[in-house]
């Protein structure tokens, strides 16, 4: 039986006294695309930050290719993290560097490759995301969709086995967003990457996901295929997939307390 490439076991995280992740368990298998879906503030981006080692959990384990990155120091987990690509929600390009230098950065930082090799790899990666010839542009000269593509080129610079994308369509118009989804799928097919996408865009889920993990209040409340979710009669799933807003049930006293600063 295939072993999971990522295994999250009972992950718990607090920010101060607030529980953000509440016993997350999730297994992701090689070559699959899993979307982590949920409302704003449900903990999905926090979960992603933990998986890529940017945040440390209060409790629990995160096994990537069998190695528990929560128990390794920075130096020990570097070999694992080098084979992980991350596309940040904000693209996170360095504005003072050209697009080419942004893409080349991980190669210059983490490999002993010679500069001519790095230059050719950078142009190859930009070509793969449809930005051939843009290596000398500055990020400020790019549109939102182009910035996302440049950030994707940087995320795949080291030929990662696993690519994480945090809200790849955020802030993009629907047509550009579909283009980014299609590009992610093209790269997955070509490089046989495992892809984890955090999103709240339903259209994106149906286009790219093999499986969906739905989060609510720091927990994963359901895992299944997009079709499983579409046909589910679970209230929370149905509300999400049918885009039904929360009912306005206001507790008068609680609301008053929150306005006058007496809330717990």
């Amino acid at each position, binding site marked *: 039986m295939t072993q999971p490439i990522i295994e999250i076991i009972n992950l718990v995280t607090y920010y101060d006294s607030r529980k953000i992740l509440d016993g997350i368990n999730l297994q992701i298998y090689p070559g699959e695309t899993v979307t982590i879906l949920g409302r704003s503030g449900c903990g999905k981006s926090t979960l992603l930050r933990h998986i890529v080692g940017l945040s440390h959990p209060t409790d629990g384990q995160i096994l990537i290719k069998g190695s528990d990155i929560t128990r390794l120091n920075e130096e020990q987990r570097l070999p694992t993290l080098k084979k992980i690509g991350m596309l940040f929600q904000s693209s996170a390009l360095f504005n003072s560097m050209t697009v080419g230098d942004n893409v080349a950065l991980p190669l210059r930082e983490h*490999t*002993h*490759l*010679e500069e*001519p*090799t*790095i230059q*050719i*790899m950078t142009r*190859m*990666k930009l*070509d*793969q995301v449809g930005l051939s010839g843009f290596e000398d542009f500055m990020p400020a000269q790019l549109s939102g969709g182009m910035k996302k593509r440049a950030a994707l080129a940087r995320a795949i610079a*080291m*030929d990662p086995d696993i690519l994480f994308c945090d809200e790849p369509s955020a802030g993009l118009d629907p047509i550009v967003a579909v283009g980014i989804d299609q590009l992610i799928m093209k790269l997955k097919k*070509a*490089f*046989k990457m495992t892809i984890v996408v955090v999103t709240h865009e339903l259209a994106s889920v149906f286009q790219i996901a093999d499986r969906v993990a739905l989060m609510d209040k720091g927990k994963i409340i359901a895992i299944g295929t997009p079709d499983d979710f579409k046909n589910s009669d679970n209230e929370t799933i149905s509300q999400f997939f049918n885009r039904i807003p929360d009912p306005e049930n206001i507790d008068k006293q609680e609301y008053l307390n929150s306005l006058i600063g007496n809330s717990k």
Partner: protein
Amino acid sequence: MIKIETREINRYIIVDIKGDVDLYSSPQIRKVLLENIAKKVSGLIINLKSVSYMDSSGIATLVESLQRLNEYRGKLVITHVQGAVKDVFELSRLDKVFTIVDNESDALKVCNVEVN
């Protein structure tokens, strides 16, 4: 662990590579290829029969070698491109740029080398 061996036939260097070509092994391959190019050999024949994985750094190394050989009309021929390596070549659209043939005998024919 990568293993790189070279043989010479009529000023053409046949480079037999065994192992994965990745971020760690590409610099070693680059060194061997560029040393031979510096000697202005007639061409390089790269045998990938025992290579089952090649990443972008390997492809970039071959592109750089091709570029340098083109400067003096040297030839670069690649043999035994298969499986995942073939996928990477196709994705990079470099299957259109490189001369790729099935085996060493075909490579020598492309280079007009007669072997007795």
